[in-house]
C-alpha cells in the first residue's frame, strides 16, 4: 500500500503541506534553483544573474507577497478589494516613520526587525479599523468602498507632507540593512556589493536573496493558513456566506480577520517595495497599483498560492520579455530575410510609413509604442484569462499535469 500516490492512511498526511513525494522533490530542486540564480551558473538562464534581472526577480518577490495578501481576502474569503494599494502605502509610510534616518521628514532610525513587522501590523490594524464598513456592505458595493479608500488614502498621503514628503516630491525610505539597534555600520547589509561566505556578490544579488527568503516565508504562511480553522472558515464564507453563518461561522468576525491578514501582507509588501526602490511619491499608492495586484492574483489563479506566485512572475517579467522580443523581431525585420522577417514586418512598424501594431520609434511611427503595447497586452491578458481560463496560470498548469499524469490515456 505504501508509496502509492493519492492514497492517504492518515488525515494529517492528506492535509500536509507537501502531500506527495514529487512535490517535495520539485520543491527541493526549485530551492536549489533559487539559490543558484544569482551565481549565473545555470546554463540557459545565466542571464538572470545580471543586476537588472535580479532586480526584476526581487520585484517578483515583493509583488508576490502583496498579492498573497489579496489572495487571502479575494481568493480564500471571497471578498472583493480595490484598496490593496492603500494598505501597501500605509505599510510603506510606517516603515519610513520608524526606519528612516531622522531628517527633514519623520524618521526614528529604528532597525529593520522593528520597522518591517510594524509596517504589517499597522496596516492590519487599519484594515480591521475600516473593516466594520467593509463588513456591512457586500459584493460589488465592497469594491466601491475600497475604491473610495484608495482615493481618500491618496489625499491623506499627498497632504501629510511631514511623513510622506508631499505630492510629486516624495521621500526616501529605510534601506534593506540589518542592525541590532542604531549602530553606525549595519550588521548585515543587503544593498552594497561585497563578499558573503567568501563568495563575491553584488548588492542586487543580496537583495534578491533577502526578498526571496521573505517570499518563501509568506508562501509557507499562506499555504498553512488554508488548512487551519480560520482558512476553512474563510472558504465557507466565500462559497456561501449565509450557509456559513448558519453552520456557526461568525461571518463578521472572520471577514474582519481576513481584512486584517490581507492588510498585513499588503503592509509588508508596501514597506519592502518602498525600501527596495528607495524613493516613492505619494501618488504611487493608487488604483493602478491595486489593479496590478488584482491582475497578479487573477492571472495566476484566484485562491491558489502557487498561482499567485506564478502570476507575479508573469506580470512583472512580461513587459521586459515583450520589449526584448519586439526589439529582436525589429532587428530581424530590418535585416529583412526569411519568413520571420515577413511576418514580423506585418506586426512591427520600423519606419515612418511602415504599417504595424507596435513601433520601435515611439511617437513618430504608426502603431503603439512598446510600453503602450505592453499595457494593451496586459489588459487583454486579464480579459482572456478571465474568459477562457478562470483558474489562471495554475489552471493551465493543472491541465498540463493531468495530461501527462494520464498519458498515454486522455482521461
Amino acid at each position, binding site marked *: 500500500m505504501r508509496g502509492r500516490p493519492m492514497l492517504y492512511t492518515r488525515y494529517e498526511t492528506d492535509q500536509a503541506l507537501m502531500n506527495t513525494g514529487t512535490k517535495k522533490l520539485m520543491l527541493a530542486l526549485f530551492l536549489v534553483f533559487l539559490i543558484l540564480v544569482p551565481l549565473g551558473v545555470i546554463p540557459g*538562464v545565466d*542571464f538572470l544573474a545580471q543586476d537588472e534581472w535580479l*532586480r*526584476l526577480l526581487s520585484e517578483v518577490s515583493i509583488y508576490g507577497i502583496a498579492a498573497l495578501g489579496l489572495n487571502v481576502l479575494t481568493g480564500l474569503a471571497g471578498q472583493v478589494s480595490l484598496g490593496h494599494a492603500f494598505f501597501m502605502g500605509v505599510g510603506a509610510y510606517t516603515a519610513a516613520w520608524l526606519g528612516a534616518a531622522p531628517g527633514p521628514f519623520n524618521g526614528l532610525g529604528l532597525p529593520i526587525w522593528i520597522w518591517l513587522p510594524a509596517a504589517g501590523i499597522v496596516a492590519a490594524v487599519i484594515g480591521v479599523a475600516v473593516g466594520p464598513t467593509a463588513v456591512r456592505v457586500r459584493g460589488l458595493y465592497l469594491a466601491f468602498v475600497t475604491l473610495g479608500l484608495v482615493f481618500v488614502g491618496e489625499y491623506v498621503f*499627498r497632504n501629510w507632507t511631514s511623513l510622506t514628503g508631499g505630492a510629486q*516630491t516624495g521621500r526616501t525610505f529605510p534601506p534593506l540593512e540589518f542592525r541590532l539597534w542604531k549602530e553606525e555600520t549595519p550588521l548585515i547589509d543587503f544593498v552594497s556589493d561585497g563578499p558573503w561566505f567568501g563568495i563575491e556578490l553584488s548588492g542586487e544579488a543580496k537583495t534578491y536573496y533577502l526578498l526571496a527568503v521573505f517570499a518563501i516565508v509568506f508562501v509557507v504562511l499562506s499555504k498553512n493558513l488554508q488548512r487551519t480553522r480560520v482558512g476553512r472558515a474563510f472558504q465557507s464564507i466565500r462559497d456561501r456566506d449565509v450557509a456559513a453563518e448558519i453552520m456557526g461561522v461568525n461571518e463578521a468576525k472572520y471577514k474582519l480577520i481576513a481584512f486584517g491578514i490581507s492588510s498585513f501582507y499588503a503592509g509588508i509588501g508596501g514597506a519592502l517595495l518602498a525600501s527596495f526602490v*528607495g524613493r516613492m511619491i505619494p501618488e504611487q499608492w493608487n488604483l493602478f497599483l491595486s489593479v496590478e495586484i488584482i491582475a497578479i492574483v487573477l492571472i495566476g489563479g484566484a485562491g491558489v498560492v502557487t498561482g499567485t506566485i506564478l502570476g507575479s512572475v508573469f506580470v512583472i517579467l512580461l513587459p521586459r520579455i515583450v520589449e526584448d522580443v519586439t526589439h529582436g523581431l525589429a532587428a530581424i525585420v530590418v535585416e529583412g530575410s526569411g519568413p520571420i522577417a515577413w511576418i514580423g514586418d506585418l506586426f512591427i512598424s520600423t519606419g515612418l510609413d511602415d504599417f504595424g501594431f507596435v513601433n520601435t520609434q*515611439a511617437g513618430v511611427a504608426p502603431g503603439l509604442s512598446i*510600453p503602450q503595447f505592453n499595457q494593451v497586452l496586459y489588459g487583454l491578458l486579464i480579459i482572456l484569462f478571465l474568459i477562457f481560463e478562470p483558474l489562471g496560470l495554475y489552471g493551465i498548469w493543472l491541465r498540463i499535469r493531468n495530461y501527462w499524469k494520464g498519458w498515454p490515456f486522455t482521461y
Partner: protein
Amino acid sequence: MKAKSKWLAIFLVLGLILAACGGDGGTDETTTSAESTDTTEDMTSTTEGDMTSTTAGGAGEIATDVGVDLEAGTITVGLLSDLSGVFSSLVQIIVTGHEVYWEQVNANGGIGGLEVVVNPVDTAYDPPTHVQRYEELKDEVVAFGHSTGSPHTVAINDQLQADGILAIPLTWYSGWSDDAINANLLHHGVPYCLESMNIIGYLKDMMGDGLQTIAIASNPGDYGLDSHEGAVLAAEALGLEVVYEGREAINAADEATLTEVANGIVQSGADLAYVTTSPTAFSTIFGTALAQGYQGTWSGAGPSYNPAFIAPDSPIKDAIAASTYWSAYYGLWGMDTPGVQEATQLLTDSGRVEVPVSAYFEGFVEAQIMHAALEQAYANGDMTQAGVLAAAKSLENVALDGLGPDETYVGANNDQVQRASAAIWRPDPEALASGESAGEEVLETDYTNAITEAYEFNEACYSLEG
C-alpha cells in the same frame, strides 16, 4: 466546452511561442553584454599596456570602461525617457531631437571617429521603473543624455554618485544648479524659479502701472513649488501685491481643485494670474475663470502651455493669444539665431518632424551639452564613466549658438546658474494656422530681467530632499 478548450489550446500555444521568444531575446542579450564586458576588461587592461592601435583617430591612449567600445567604434549614451507616462508626448519628441542631432554628428565623423548611439528606455514617469531602468542601463552606457522628472532623478542620484556616472536631468528645477546635490548632474536652461522672475519682470516692465496685483497658483512638487517660490520672490522684488496664493493648490487629476483655484483667481481680481501646472489643468483654470469674467493677464512656467491651445479649432485660441505670455528654456521654432536655424534645417531634412514644435530643440540642447562633455573627455584621453563626468564638470561656456543660452559648469552656484530665458514670447494662432511656425511670436531672445540679474542664487529655491 469543446470550443472553450480549443481556444485554450490556441492560447497556450501562443503563450509557449512567446515564452520561447523571450528565452531567445534573453540569451541574445547576455551574449552581447558578456561580449561588451569582455572587451571593456580587455580595454582597461590594455590601456596600461601598449595596445593603442585600436584607438580611432590616433589621439593617443583612450581609457574606457563602460559604454565606449573602441573596437566597434561606438559610444552609447543612455536616455531615461518617459515614453508611456504623462509626459510621453513631449519626451518622445525630445528623444527624436537627440537622434537627429547625433545622426548629423556621426555623419561628420562622430567624436574622434567614434559613433554616438543613443539608447532610450521607458521610465513611464514612475520612480520604481526609473530606478529599474537606471540599473539596466548603467552597465551599458557612458552617461545619461537625459533623466526625465525631478523626484525620479533624485531617486537615482545616490546611485549616480556611487557609480560615478553623469546625467542631464530633463527638468528645470533650480536644485540642479545647487552643488549640494548636483555632483553628477548638469543643469541646462533657466530654472523654474528664475524663469518666474524673468517673465513676471518682463510683464511689469511692459505693463507698468497696469500690473499691481498678482495671483499665484501651483502644482505640488519641485516643478510647481520652485516656480511658485520664484513668483513670490519676483512679486517681492517688484512690489506687487499677492492677492491670491494657491501654493500646491492644484491637483491636475482633481477637477475640484481646478475650480477652487479658478474661483480664487477670479475673486482676487489680480492683474496677473501666474499658474504653474499641466496644460490640461491650465486650460481648465483659464476657461473657468474666463467664463466668470476674469480679464487679467496670464502666465506660468513653460510646461503649462500646449500648442493645442491655439489650434485652429480651439475655442480659446483668441483669448489665449490676447492674454498669455511665456518664457522659453530653449529656442523656438523659426527663431532667428544660428543655432535654431541650423537645428531646424537638420530636423526638416531628417523627415521626422510631424508638427513643428520647439521641443525637438530640447533634445538638441541636451545632446549638444553631452557632445561637449564627450569631446572634452576624448581630448583628456579618459572616456570612462568617471572621465566623462569629470570632463563635463570642467566645461565652461558651452556655446549653443542661440539654440539655448550658453551654459557653464564651473564656479559657485551663483556663477553657474542659468539666468537667461532663451526667449520671451506670446502665442500667435495665425502663424500656427499658416504652418510657418509653432505659433510663437518671439518678443525677446536671450532675455534676463534686472530682478533675475540681481538675485543672489546660493541654493535651490525649493528644497527637494529627504
